[in-house]
């Protein structure tokens, strides 16, 4: 709130261009608030709202497994915000988090990779990406920003899905969490708003030979099951990456996770780092604005 007041008064001082910055996110903000409202309503009392939100769920799910009264902050936890059984297993594994070594490796990379510290003097920036770069006219995800920085320092870029990239992002996430940072995505130009709109369109369109949209599973579907997996909500999807997945036996970035879901959709995955992927991530991250950064994390 204070941040908002400060920005506003700076805007007044600086005149028109910055003044209108506040309004470029008007539609996104409307979308975000609607999503929060939908999710809070859906998970206020699943048994009561069964007919509306969980028409095909089992008695066991709506009466005992799904948690009631899920709060806004809880959505940073993905499906563990409401899946009691999953949450129990998650907490057990988290007693000995398998990603600790990755954070250490990430700190090493931060301190010893040429150029990185100069580009990112403050490592607690996980919640600020993706950003829209008005000079380049495109969305820059954290992974792309890291690679731009490496290239500027004369180094080879890293793979966007795992390895060093995931380790360094784990360090950034841990530092951001430690500092109590929240997701804070900005839309400050017409071009940025257009990129957001394209990302939203990708998210809500039916694609792949199965004709499923991301939203089928993660908006309407959230809290329901595909096989035995309880589906996580769009709200909070970007807060806790990178994640250590048992299935991967290792750490992976958000880009890596989304590739898997595109395959589930029956689609040839888009290239991580492509405008398609970056713009969708921009939309997804904006939806999580205001939630605490909570990475790295573990998932099945």
């Amino acid at each position: 709130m204070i941040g908002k007041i400060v920005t506003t008064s700076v805007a007044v001082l600086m005149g028109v261009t910055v003044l209108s910055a506040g309004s470029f996110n008007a539609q996104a903000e409307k979308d975000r608030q609607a999503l929060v409202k939908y999710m809070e309503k859906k998970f206020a009392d699943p048994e009561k709202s069964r007919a509306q939100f969980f028409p095909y769920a089992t008695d066991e799910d709506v009466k005992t497994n799904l948690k009631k009264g899920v709060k806004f902050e809880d959505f940073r936890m993905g499906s563990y915000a409401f899946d009691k059984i999953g949450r129990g297993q998650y907490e057990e594994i988290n007693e000995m988090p398998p990603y600790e070594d990755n954070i250490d490796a990430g700190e090493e990379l931060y301190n010893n990779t040429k150029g990185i510290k100069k580009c990112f003097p403050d490592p607690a920036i996980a919640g600020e990406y993706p950003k829209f770069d008005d000079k380049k006219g495109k969305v820059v995800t954290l992974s792309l920003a890291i690679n731009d920085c490496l290239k500027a320092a004369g180094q080879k870029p890293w793979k966007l899905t795992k390895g060093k990239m995931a380790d360094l992002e784990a360090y950034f996430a841990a530092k951001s969490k430690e500092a109590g940072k929240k997701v804070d995505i900005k839309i400050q130009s017409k071009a940025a708003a257009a990129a957001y709109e394209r990302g939203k369109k990708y998210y809500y369109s039916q694609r792949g030979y199965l004709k499923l949209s991301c939203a089928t599973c993660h908006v309407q579907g959230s809290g329901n099951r595909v096989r035995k997996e309880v589906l996580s909500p769009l709200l909070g999807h970007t807060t806790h990456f990178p994640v250590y997945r048992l299935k991967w036996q290792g750490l992976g970035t958000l880009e890596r996770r989304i590739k898997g879901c595109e395959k589930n959709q029956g689609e040839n995955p888009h290239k991580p780092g492509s405008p398609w992927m970056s713009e969708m991530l921009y939309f997804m991250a904006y939806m999580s604005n205001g939630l605490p950064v909570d990475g790295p994390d573990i998932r099945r």
Partner: protein
Amino acid sequence: MQRMKLLVAASAMAGLLSVGAMAGNADLVKQGEKIFNTKKIGNCLACHAVNGKNINNPGNLGPKLQGLSAWPEQALFDKVYDPYTTNPISAMPPFGKNGVLNDEQIKAVVAYLKTIN
């Protein structure tokens, strides 16, 4: 008679006439059940539990299937071929229209669905 022929032709095109006639019905049911429960083929269990059958960890994006033995075969075929014909906002994939399953496979699935009470 002419009309009858047309009907026969139409349903043969829709791939329905031969349910039960081609392979033994039991074989067809088995084949359909396999398609239903196999991840790389139909993967129907990802979204559907089935009344009276033992399905391993079914999902629930779709309804628990029951009472399908009473459905006309054509209606079941259409549902699996393209659910949007009866429900334009269905979350179910159009298995036939999008070429995930061919007509023979859908016929087998329909034979299996007909055993669901």
